[in-house]
């Protein structure tokens, strides 16, 4: 007598009608050996389902969160740069008009330079590609803390964009300076770590 193959036995467990299932079932009804084999198959699957869960050896959330925050920051930064360029253009018009009537304020020019510095640091971080690298726990925590603080500044910058009137230049300059300082520190954390580890 030809017994059922493993593929045929597995086919009997499928919800739909597999090709040859009717013949296989007919054989099964008459064959105690194949019935025992199908029972063993059911038991094996039940034992697989009952295996205890395996748990990760370490917490991967800090790295995951830092990576996600960095990506969000980059997305926000691209938006902020676009909006910032528009703001800078309108400031240039205002400053230009102002120069005709009164002494020029250095704030507009400084704001523009600070935004450019911020973009240069973003580019440096992007070139270093921190998301593609594995961070040790301490570096990941420091980077995450800085990412959190940059995200907070970005939220404040976004809030100024929603104001009905143009925000005071001093306030904008202050926020952009803070952003540059934090980005500088973030580059430092990554680059220092890389040089210490010889990467």
């Amino acid at each position: 007598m030809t017994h059922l193959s493993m593929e045929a036995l597995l086919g009997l467990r499928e919800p739909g009608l597999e090709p040859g299932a009717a013949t296989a079932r007919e054989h099964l009804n008459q064959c105690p050996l194949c019935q025992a084999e199908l029972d063993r198959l059911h038991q094996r699957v039940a034992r697989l389902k009952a295996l205890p869960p395996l748990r990760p050896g370490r917490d991967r959330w800090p790295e995951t969160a830092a990576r996600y925050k960095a990506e969000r920051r980059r997305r926000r930064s691209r938006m902020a740069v676009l909006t910032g360029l528009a703001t800078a253009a309108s400031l240039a018009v205002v400053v230009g008009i102002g120069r005709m009537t009164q002494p020029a304020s250095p704030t507009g020019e400084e704001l523009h330079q600070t935004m450019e510095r911020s973009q240069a640091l973003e580019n440096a971080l992007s070139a270093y590609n921190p998301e593609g690298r594995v961070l040790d726990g301490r570096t990941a925590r420091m980077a995450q803390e800085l990412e959190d603080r940059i995200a907070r500044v970005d939220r404040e910058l976004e809030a100024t964009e929603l104001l009905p009137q143009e925000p005071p230049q001093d306030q904008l300059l202050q926020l952009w300076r803070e952003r540059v300082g934090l980005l500088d520190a973030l580059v430092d954390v990554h680059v220092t770590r890389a040089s210490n580890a010889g990467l």
Partner: protein
Amino acid sequence: MPGTLLMDSSLLANAQTVVARARTGDPEALASLYRAFEVPVYNLARRICRTAEDAEDVLQETFFEVCRSIGRYREEGSLWGWVRTIAASKALMRIRRNKYRDTDELHDEFVGQRQEDTHLRMDLEAALERLSETSRAVVWLHDVEGYTHEEIASMMGKTPSFSKSQLARAHARLRVWLGEEGTL
């Protein structure tokens, strides 16, 4: 479903609120999602991938994707079902990358040893570990997670027949390694 049993019940009770907050990028809500699904995602990844390091990388890749894509989750299926599909895809991507290691030579050698040393009987964990990554992935996704051969084929970029034959081959091996041979 094993994943469901491992999930944090407080998340299940507040799933809609947590998802709504996670969509705004709320760090606490995203961390809650991670804590709720960390073990089932890692378990799935570890059952499929060869090493714990690979499984931890899959865990990180999965949650990075969850954070980025939570806005696209439409709540049509269960949250765990959505997260699990991301995890399974990432794990399969990882074994495709490691494919050079995924040969059956090791396993055939092992069968040779088994035939000489017939009193040795492996436990299920060890036998599962001995399967090739592809076979193990099919066994786990089909028999434990409940995916159909069509779904597995689609995730693997193969045919349903490939999935069926991998499953049959894997069970034939497990049967021998577990010392379950009958008279067939």
